[in-house]
């Protein structure tokens, strides 16, 4: 232990070590740990009017969680959120995998830069405005409906916003970048010669992908899926803009709780969401047998 | 001006392993001293201990009579030239050289003047404003040297600085370094695994085996009178034969080996009955033209390779022992044919009996 401090001081000097300890310390303690613990604490306390806080009624209780587990509507919403987020993840993966592969292995030279730019530019525009674009497209008198009517395929406009479809579509649109880049990064490190060799030996493209590319890309896929799922499950913007009452999202439930000033209940629900994300992440790690270290932008 | 460096009982331990153990040597002020040894012998560790990057686990280092304990590398009167040179890539040549002065808050005018002087000293005219990445290997070397000299160190530490250069440049730089050292009178501590470098450049050489200092002496003494088997086998080439001591004769001893019995010097004062190894340099083996019987071998020549100024002859005794002989091409020796059986011998003053075998060269 002493050795560690001596080396640290020798390497970085007193000010350096102090700087690191203070910045990281403040960050971890005041911004990461304590707020989380407080949220957790809130979730365990009942909602009380101001004057009762700190008094005899202020005890630790699982009541808030019980409210959640006994509320069938909320449970249904919770599972629907999970299910829809999974759909978003899978859809994004299916769309992005070829793109990532193309970008990493097939495209050459100037094309790569251009395509990258084409991927990144939309993301510089605010997420909400992009979702708004879809709102317009999918509205009752929106572009898609007008187009279909114009083509004579339908007579009356379709209410795209009924059900989850619009939300899922919007989310996929919003989170494509988070799926493409991790996979692209991993694929880049794959030696092109392996592919050529396999091709040379007569393997079909399907085989090549299944046996060579995908195993190599596993970490990237895991990261991409984790991020996409967590973004999908944890976002408020898309459901707010593209959803309808029938596609209420779990995060919106949390929001409602806060709007009604029931912070305790909201904290409990938020903790549930948090647990969901943690569980999902560990599942992904196990599924793809990946360590925690893989995270690049 | 150079200062002396006194290393007393210095050991350095990393967890359970000793990188260097009980090193004792007194390097004189203004001396060009080399530590010579194979990779992993601890010479880099020793250099880093002197420069102050580490403090020794045991022992003491004094520079100019002052104890360096706990004094960091930035406060010691030393400057180091790293193996990878460690030039600052984002700075020009002049900025690199002037760095030591800059951090000492030397006035700009004075600093620039000193930088100019040093650029002249190391022969880098006109490169002051170039980025170091644009320079050749030899030029980068000289920037490193100038940069180190700028802070007027009492001791300059050089970590195998020439190993990355090609042969011609290396030879040239060796002469230059020696030159600079003589002119500035700074104490040079040089580490290398190349014995030619150590022997040609240094005032004294310290030969190191794994963590231990085997011998400290002038180059010719190291070469001609090795004190231990390691030194004898590491420095220069030797014929090596193991055997048992059967007789003591003053400073000499008789070693009985499979190839015959030989007399050699006994510097370690070994006793009768001890196992020892005899070391004989190839150039001290010659054709036996007289009837002198001592240290005489009858061998068959296996190969002869003419290398211009001399010839290397590989011989095999009846028992299969391989000997190497080096003959000068000065016409004094009759031509030898391959496959011929000849008689060779060597003088007892040129042979050394030392404890612990070395590595054979054949």
């Amino acid at each position, binding site marked *: 232990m002493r050795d560690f401090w001596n080396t640290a001081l020798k390497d970085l000097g007193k000010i350096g070590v102090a700087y690191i300890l203070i910045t990281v310390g403040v960050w*971890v303690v005041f911004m990461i740990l304590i*707020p989380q613990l407080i949220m957790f604490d809130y979730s365990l306390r009942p909602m009380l009017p101001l004057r009762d806080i700190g008094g005899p009624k202020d005890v630790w209780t699982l009541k808030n969680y019980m409210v959640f587990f006994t509320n069938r509507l909320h449970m249904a919403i919770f599972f629907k959120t999970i299910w829809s987020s999974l759909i978003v993840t899978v859809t994004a993966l299916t769309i992005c995998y070829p793109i990532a592969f193309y970008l990493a292995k097939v495209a050459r030279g100037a094309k790569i830069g251009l395509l990258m730019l084409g991927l990144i530019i939309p993301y510089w525009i605010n997420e909400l405005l992009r979702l708004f674009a879809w709102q317009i497209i999918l509205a009752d008198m929106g572009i898609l409906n007008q187009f279909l009517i114009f083509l004579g395929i339908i007579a009356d406009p379709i209410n795209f916003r009924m059900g989850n479809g619009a939300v899922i579509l919007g989310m996929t649109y919003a989170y494509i970048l988070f799926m493409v880049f991790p996979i692209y990064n991993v694929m880049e490190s794959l030696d092109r010669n392996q592919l050529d060799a396999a091709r040379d030996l007569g393997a079909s493209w399907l085989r090549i992908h299944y046996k060579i590319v995908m195993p190599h890309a596993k970490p990237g896929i895991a990261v991409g899926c984790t991020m996409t799922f967590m973004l999908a499950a944890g976002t*408020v913007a898309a459901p707010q803009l593209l959803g309808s009452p029938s596609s209420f999202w779990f995060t919106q439930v949390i929001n409602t709780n806060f709007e009604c000033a029931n912070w305790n209940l909201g904290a409990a629900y938020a903790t549930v969401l948090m647990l969901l994300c943690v569980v999902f992440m560990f599942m992904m790690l196990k599924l793809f047998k990946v360590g925690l270290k893989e995270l690049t932008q | 001006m150079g200062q002396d460096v006194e290393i007393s009982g210095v050991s350095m331990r990393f967890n359970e392993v000793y990188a260097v153990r009980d090193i004792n040597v007194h390097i004189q002020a203004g001396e060009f001293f080399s530590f010579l040894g194979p990779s992993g012998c601890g010479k880099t560790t020793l250099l880093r201990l002197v420069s102050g990057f580490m403090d020794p686990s045991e022992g003491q280092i004094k520079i100019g009579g002052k104890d360096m304990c706990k004094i960091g590398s930035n406060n010691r009167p030393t400057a180091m030239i790293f193996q*990878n040179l460690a030039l600052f890539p984002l700075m020009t040549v002049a900025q690199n050289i002037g760095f030591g002065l800059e*951090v000492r808050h030397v006035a700009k005018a004075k600093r620039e003047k000193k930088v100019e002087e040093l650029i002249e000293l190391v022969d880098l005219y006109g490169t002051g404003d170039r980025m170091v990445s644009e320079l050749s290997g030899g030029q980068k070397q000289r920037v490193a040297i100038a940069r180190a000299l700028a802070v007027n160190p009492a001791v300059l530490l050089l970590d195998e600085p020439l190993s990355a250069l090609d042969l011609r440049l290396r030879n040239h730089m060796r002469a230059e370094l020696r030159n600079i050292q003589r002119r500035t009178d700074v104490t040079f501590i040089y580490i290398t695994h190349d014995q030619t470098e150590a022997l040609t450049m240094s005032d004294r050489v310290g030969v190191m085996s794994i963590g231990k200092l085997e011998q400290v002496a002038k180059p010719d003494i190291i070469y001609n009178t090795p004190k231990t088997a390691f030194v004898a086998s590491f420095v220069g080439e030797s014929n090596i034969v193991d055997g048992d001591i059967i007789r003591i004769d003053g400073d000499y001893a008789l070693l009985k080996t499979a190839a015959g019995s030989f007399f050699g010097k006994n510097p370690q004062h070994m006793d009768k009955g001890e196992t020892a190894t005899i070391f004989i340099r190839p150039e001290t083996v010659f054709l036996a033209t007289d009837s002198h019987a001592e240290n005489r071998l009858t061998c068959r020549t296996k190969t002869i390779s003419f290398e211009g100024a001399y010839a290397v002859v590989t011989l095999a005794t009846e028992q299969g022992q391989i000997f190497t002989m080096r003959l000068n091409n000065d016409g004094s020796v009759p031509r030898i044919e391959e496959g011929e059986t000849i008689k060779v011998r060597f003088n007892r003053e040129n042979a050394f009996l030392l404890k612990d075998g070395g590595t054979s060269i054949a």
Partner: protein
Amino acid sequence: MKSSKSIFRIIIGLYLTLFFAYMFLPLIFMTIIAFNANDIPQITPWKGFTLMWFGELAKDEQMWSALWNSFLVAFSVVAISVPIGLGGALLLTRLQFKARNFVYGVLVSPILTPGIILGISTFLFWDSYMDIPGGLWTAILGQSTFISSYCMLLIMSRAQRFDLTQEEAAFDLGATHGQVFWKITLPFLRPALISSMALAFMQSFDNYNTTLFAIGVEQTLPIYIGTKLRSFISPAMNALAVVFILLTVLGAIIYEYRRRREMIKAA
């Protein structure tokens, strides 16, 4: 063999076209609508070319106030996140200790945490225990929690390629720790620091999820947009989108231009 290759090419080409159409068409539609003199954001019926929505946007006090807040918050976030990110990067790249992987996990965890949870926890902490109500300050802190992680990762990837013998050489020549850091280490890290500043700014400016829960009654631009879009939809929002698009395209052009110049310089 050849014909299958060209079929292959066609499929790829088609896929790419569809993909980028999917990405860009919505934006193109947005832009067109911004100039349509139609009260409702649509392409048809086309009621004439107009710039009035831009005018309406410019007159919106709330929008300007939210924009100002966005800048305030973004600059503050940069000022907090980059130093913290630097601290974290130095901790993980320069110090060796057993719990390194664990600490790495902790410092990266904010990225993996849903934004709203960061917002909620920050809000609860400062509002209840520190008596600072939800507002710009809590938004800044909530955002900084995870943006610091991004900065840290960015700086780390550069710091890992740093040749430490340079620092040793500088020490050896007599520099103090401060001088070594300022003259040797920092210049090396500068590109990463600059790009993390840019990243932090953009992420902060754009952030919705965390800010929504942390900011209480105040507004940054995304919050403003969110509220507006949920209540009364007006093509003024399209005008705002066009402004964004223009700035983005401008940014992209400048970026490409500078990149091309760098490549020419290096050649």
